[in-house]
């Protein structure tokens, strides 16, 4: 069990934006810190949603399984982001699995504590609404992509979303800074592992991306944007 957290760890977290030091201390006092080693579940789809969660460190994959066993990666959660919180306010069941894909530290607030915090500090509820709104917009975009775009554009968009969330400048280009498999990309884009492999291999051949078993580096960022946005082809100036 990690030591009781310092309220400062809530600073910079969108869920607690605009709160004064007193309110942050109150929020942190009600939080339960937990560690989750890489590969373990934070919560499971269908379980009663006992708490709201926020990630302090690491990376969590939110993945939903359909009745036929098909999995869809809903999103990756990075440090500072809330997750698994909506179920408290909907049907009380977690809608997806949350799996630690790196060693994680999270805070969770029992449902009653989260509700009480929101009642006492409406800014938390407003912040949650804004986070949920942003994610809804992202899902609307993904739905449109799945319905209308050819698969290459969908894969390019998925990589760009991950860059926006977890991009890191490296010598070779822009790296997606957490373990990401081709299967993950397939499950994010509603396509098959085979198609993702074929697409990424083609892009590797063109020098656009470089992907190891769990790592993706975008070597030609603009070329990927051009695929995602259907921009005119990049002039090749050698």
């Amino acid at each position, binding site marked *: 069990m990690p030591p009781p957290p310092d309220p400062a760890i809530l600073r910079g977290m969108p869920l607690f934006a605009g709160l004064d030091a007193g309110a942050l201390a109150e929020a942190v006092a009600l939080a339960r810190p937990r560690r989750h080693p890489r590969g373990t579940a934070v919560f499971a789809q269908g379980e009663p949603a006992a708490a709201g969660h926020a990630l302090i460190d690491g990376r969590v994959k939110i993945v939903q399984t359909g009745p036929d066993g098909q999995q869809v990666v809903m999103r990756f959660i990075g440090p500072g982001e809330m997750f698994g919180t909506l179920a408290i306010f909907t049907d009380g069941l977690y809608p997806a699995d949350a799996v630690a894909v790196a060693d994680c530290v999270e805070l969770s607030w029992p449902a009653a504590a989260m509700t009480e915090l929101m009642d006492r500090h409406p800014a938390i509820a407003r912040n949650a609404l804004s986070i949920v709104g942003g994610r809804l917009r992202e899902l609307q975009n993904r739905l449109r992509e799945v319905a209308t775009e050819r698969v290459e554009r969908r894969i390019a968009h998925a990589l760009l979303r991950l*860059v926006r969330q977890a991009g890191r400048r490296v010598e070779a280009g*822009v790296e997606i800074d957490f373990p990401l498999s081709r299967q993950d990309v397939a499950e994010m884009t509603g396509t098959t592992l085979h198609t993702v492999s074929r697409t990424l291999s083609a892009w590797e051949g063109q020098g656009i991306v470089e992907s190891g078993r769990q790592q993706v580096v975008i070597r030609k960022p*603009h070329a*990927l*944007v051009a695929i995602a*946005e259907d921009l005119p082809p*990049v002039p090749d100036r050698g």
Partner: protein
Amino acid sequence: MTVSDMTMADLMSARPAVVPVLLRHGLACPGCAMAPFMTVREAADAYGLELGVLLADLAAADSSGSDAGDDQSPASEGGFRNPRARIALPEACRPSESDDDRMGCADGERSFIGYLL
């Protein structure tokens, strides 16, 4: 840091007035996930644009869109605060990346451009 080595995201946040200039050049940087990672120089290269032309147009962007007196702006070094930066440069006077000496401008104009960049 020179403007050409700023990331596109830093440039756009320091100088929102450059956004229409970027769009006019056909750059998709505003709102792009890659903007925090790519410099102005890299963007020009990726789009096949002459860096000097792009820099001159960025420098000439109207400065009314940002707070005067914000001296934390990294753009200040680029001379954007200079009201003269609004003067549109004749095509022949626009500098290119490495040929400052061959721009075909009189000495005074060249140093003016050097100040802009």
